[in-house]
């Protein structure tokens, strides 16, 4: 069982600078050749004016705190028995090249069901204008309690 006293533990702020080629690399890795992710000339003809990040690119810029939870030496989760059980993203605006994202996160919940432990991380990503970009909620499941 994971000690409930860690509920509320915070991570960050973590800075992440959005790179043009990294955005493209992520979209290509996710099999998405949509021009708005890759082609600046096309993007200039749209309301966005430049290429935008694939929504799921939030896995890169809004979940780094979750990685810190997994490696947190105070909590020492049993990684051998841990799987990423569920994920939720909520987007409020798009990301563009050179945006500087600041992620702050916390352990939002810890609970048990049967012999499974659940640890929930919530990250909030804001851009350089302090606009909310994305909320990310990752649920990790640890077998064996």
């Amino acid at each position: 069982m994971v000690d409930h006293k860690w509920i509320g533990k915070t991570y960050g702020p973590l800075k992440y600078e959005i790179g043009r080629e990294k955005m493209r690399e992520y979209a290509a890795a996710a099999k998405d050749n949509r021009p708005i992710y890759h082609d600046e000339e096309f993007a200039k003809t749209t309301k966005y004016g430049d290429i935008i990040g694939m929504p799921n690119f939030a896995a890169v810029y809004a979940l780094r705190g979750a990685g810190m939870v997994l490696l947190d030496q105070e909590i020492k989760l049993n990684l051998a028995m841990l799987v990423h059980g569920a994920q939720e993203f909520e987007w409020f605006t798009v990301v563009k090249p050179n945006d500087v994202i600041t992620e702050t996160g916390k352990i939002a919940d810890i609970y048990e069901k049967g012999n499974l432990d659940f640890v929930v991380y919530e990250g909030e990503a804001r851009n350089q204008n302090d606009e909310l970009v994305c909320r990310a909620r990752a649920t990790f499941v640890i077998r064996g309690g």
Partner: protein
Amino acid sequence: MAELCELKYDDVQVGQEIPSFSHQFDRMDAVIYAGASGDFNPIHTNPFFAKDVAMLPDVIAHGLFNMALLGKTVVDWIGDPGYLKKLSCQFRGMVIPGDTVIFKGKVREKLEGNLVVLDVWAEKADGSIVLKGGEATVFLP
């Protein structure tokens, strides 16, 4: 201005299925996704580790890779990535090289404010579930 979304809120019906997207996973997909995402867990990229240490049948796809393809499936339907407001799912089935995964969605309800909620999921050709209980919320003009 090039318009990215040609779909209209008024044209969408509850119960309507969106075009599915099908992808056969191979081990290079996981290597490329590892580099793009920064998740280098060897269960996704190293078959020796996956089989001999983690006791898996082979390397398995990243859950977030499968979820990205689910997001792509919804964006392919709406056209404008900025109109995808929410996406969630549970990671259930393992995907190993050679598996074909089909990503699907169906309109569950239409909300005020031009929002549409879909059930979204992913399954293999044999019907076994990969991504379960997913939900997507999109804005449509």
